[in-house]
């Protein structure tokens, strides 16, 4: 059976086993520490804070790529499973109770935001890269605005060429009424988030419907424009997915620092008022 597992499956299995072991070890440690009467909040809180600190080091590690400290993928795996461990310890710490105090509510929300954004990041990092790699042309994110501009220019050239050569304004009218807006900005963001091709298919279908009103020479230009429409759709999909892959960190990382600060204060308070 083991031989049939892929590398990733094996890795997932091992890491999940390690996570369970860590949780079990923590639980045993907590029971020993509690001894039936001691408040374990100090232990679980310290563990949680320490885990968050270690998790935050992942960001530092990315800024120091020249230091030979394990592979980035190893760090990523550690970050993911340590994150799950932190979530488990968090529920040990809070006892599955909702907080009542103002500061604790804020801290609770921030932790949940960091944890949920982490989970979201994990999900999208498992889905979007594959889609980006397998659908259409892979584009560099920073080049996308320029490429969109370039694509629009190319389409307008085709339209002009069509008008000049066929003396027909069918394509030109279509461009003015629908395609100009389509090519000028990023479109169908939500549909791209969920991987839908409905919008581009509808538009392509609509363009194909125009063929009956076109002369044969004009249909050649129409085919080129449809190619551009598909390229624009891919471009939008790349922009959307890569954008999400980049911008989810705008929640995860800043809130992590906020969480560390608030967690530190919370810990000091707990010690001062214990």
């Amino acid at each position, binding site marked *: 059976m083991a031989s049939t597992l892929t590398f990733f499956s094996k890795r997932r299995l091992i890491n999940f086993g390690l996570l369970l072991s860590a949780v079990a070890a923590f639980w045993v440690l907590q029971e020993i520490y*509690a*001894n*039936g*009467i*001691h*408040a374990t909040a100090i232990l679980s809180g310290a563990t949680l804070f320490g885990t968050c600190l270690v998790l935050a080091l992942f960001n530092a590690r990315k800024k120091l790529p020249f230091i030979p400290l394990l592979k980035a993928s190893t760090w990523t795996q550690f970050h993911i499973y340590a994150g799950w461990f932190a979530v488990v310890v968090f529920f040990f710490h809070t006892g599955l*109770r909702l*907080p*009542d*105090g*103002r*500061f*604790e509510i804020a801290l609770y929300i921030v932790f949940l935001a960091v944890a949920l954004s982490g989970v979201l990041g994990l999900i999208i990092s498992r*889905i979007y890269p*594959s*889609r980006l*790699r*397998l*659908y*259409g*042309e892979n*584009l*560099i*994110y*920073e*080049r996308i*605005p*320029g*490429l*969109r*501009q*370039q694509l629009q220019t190319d389409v307008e050239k085709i339209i002009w060429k069509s008008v000049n050569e066929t003396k027909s304004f069918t394509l030109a009218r279509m461009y003015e009424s629908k395609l100009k807006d389509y090519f000028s900005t990023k479109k169908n963001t939500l549909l791209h988030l*969920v*991987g*839908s*091709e409905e919008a581009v298919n509808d538009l392509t279908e609509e363009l194909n419907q125009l063929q009956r009103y076109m002369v044969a020479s004009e249909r050649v230009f129409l085919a080129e424009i449809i*190619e*551009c429409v*598909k*390229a624009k759709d*891919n*471009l939008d999909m790349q922009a959307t997915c890569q954008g999400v892959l*980049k*911008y989810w960190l*705008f929640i995860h*990382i*800043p*809130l992590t*620092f*906020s969480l560390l*600060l*608030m967690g530190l*204060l919370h*810990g*000091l*308070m707990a*010690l*001062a*008022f*214990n």
Partner: protein
Amino acid sequence: MGLWLWRLIDTSAQTDMKRLQRFDFKFSRYQRPNQDWECGSADACAHCPLGPDSKGQCRATTECKPRKEGDRWNCTRSDSQGGKCAEGPLPDGTCCKAIPPCTPRRSVRSQRKLAVVLVVALTLGAILIALGLPSRNQTFNPGPVIAQHAADGISCDRCHTTAQLTSSAWLASAFTTSSTHASSERCMACHNLGAQPMQPHGLKAEELSLITQKITGSGSVNTAVGAIADHQGNVSCATCHKEHHGRDFDLKKVADSSCQVCHSVQFEGFPNGHPDFKSYPYDRRTRIMFDHNAHISNYFPAAKDQKTVPQGCNSCHVTDSANRLMLARNFEQSCAQCHSDTIVRPGAAGIAILSVPGLDPAFLKARAATLGQWPADADGPLTPFMRYFLMSDAKAQAALETLKGVDLMSLPRSRPELDAAAETLAWATKELIADLVISGHDTIKKRLGVSATGLAGSISPEIIQAFTRAEWIPDLLVEVAAHRAGQALPSKATPKPVATVVVAAPAPVKPAAKATDDILGGDDILADAPAVPVKPVAKTVAKAAALDDDIIDDAPSTPVVSKPVAPAAPKPILGEKWTSGGGWYASNSDYSVRYRITGHADPFVKAWLEYAAAQATTPDALNQFKTLAETNSCTKCHSIDQKPGAGLVVNWHSATTNTQTHKFTKFDHGTHFSLLSEKGCQSCHQIDPAAQYKAAFKDNLNPAVFTSNFQKVNLMNCASCHNPQGAGNSCTLCHNYHIGTFTPTVKSAFNNDKPVSASVPKP
């Protein structure tokens, strides 16, 4: 939706389409996403090759820097920029294609960095503002406290020593270790839990050790206590009581595992493994000796009047105000119907409280000159009450010690030291009586060292003055004054020869007034009675009068013939007959002042028993107490307990309830009544017919040594309901942690700054 989800994860499809990017060096610009700034014209594909500097300044100038080759300026625009331009450089060698300046924008990475800085700054700012605001405590309050702790005027610093500190001191106190203990002490400002509230169970270490010894046979307290206690053995309140969990949180709820930290013999639950009840709920003998078995089996069935017989347990027992304990009803409700007559028996003599003790006639004769007056026919003993009065007299004590075991009525001639001791005792007795006659209650207080209240028993001066009657010691006060002054006895008080005294008879003048027991009679006259020798015949009269306590019968020995006979006056009854309802009287028969018990719970006898019990700290004092106790029947039912180092205590009442007393176990009778079987109380309390109940009261002062009238309660009886599926079986359902008697802490009306405890009870 399902299709979308499929596409969301479907990675199998790939399509061919128009390619937009070119990666050859002529057309592909190198991207540097790790730089903080990027060209603002990038969207228009017109960004310059230099890009912005590290501070975000546009560095755009021209598309190339022409190079002079010979006398010509050549364009150097790179292929990636479109190659050499057709126009070429200007004559002055500058590029003809100026790049329009842009407003550089932040890269994604830089935006994220900025977001981090902003969020951190916002967080820090919010924290600092929150710490600085007056509402700081509310902001950092981790949650609502229980309703009692949330009353108006109760602020954080009522419980937390750190709460009134500055914010910086808050944080500093996180690294000190004293705040926990100090905060627990603040709990004690409102919660009185005894003298050592933070010790395990509120008990001193030695007390805990004793209890442990009793239960386990080993005095060593579980070392696990050390794991939760500080170096002084204190366990902070917050160890078990976790606050800030809401208004309705049960702060007293403690998990069983908390108990089992120290109580290391762990078991599954009450039905499975709980130690068997050794004698529960009987932890001592009953305070009132009442043999349930004898009464129910013998006395009640044999009672003449079955109406007086209790019909059930609740005829004599009733729950306390909290429905917790079953208490015995009082004497009048439970016992008086059968036992009131046995306490005050008609015709019974009162208790001799004070008396002129009898002395050896030969001794009296020999010491007549130095001893003064002494009723030769006095033959009673020194009363136990007088012995307590004489305890304050060292000489008398020494004399009593010398005379220990000697019959005062028959002093051996071979031991002259006994005569001296007897004379000392006789004078001590006379001094005592004289002091009582003169100073009354003050003497009681002075001699006994306690307030005369109760011990005086409302005795009147006239009763005491009986001692100065002509037949008793008429010159008592004069003689005692002379004796104390070290002078010879005055001539008036010159003692009559004993023989003469013996034959002393009532003076011919006003004989009735002298000899009567009338406590209102003019005894001052008796004090002045002349000590004249009387005829021997009078002895018979005097003796007869003394024996009858009534010489009125004998006084009018000469019949009046010359005058018409008046109707005979009704003859007053005297002595104990006159005081049949209880009270004081003087008895001429034995020269004693006696007290007749007024009924159950007589305050005079009770006060003396309590006084004597408190003095019984030595074997001799214990015997003295027993002698005093034998003068009445109180201790037939009221058991006596030895208090270590503090004498005895008479149990006047059966077990009483005190809502402020917390024992290790608690039980609520009221909630169980509806669960009883047809056997009623005997569902749990079954009489043990073989129990030697009374034996525990005979010559036993230790209440812990006892045999109950009842069998121990069967644990499985309780366990039939008290299990996890039923009525629950947590430790604190039946056990208290804080042990002792705790009075509520009250605020003084005169000093509102410091809450004071009503008392510091002992556990």
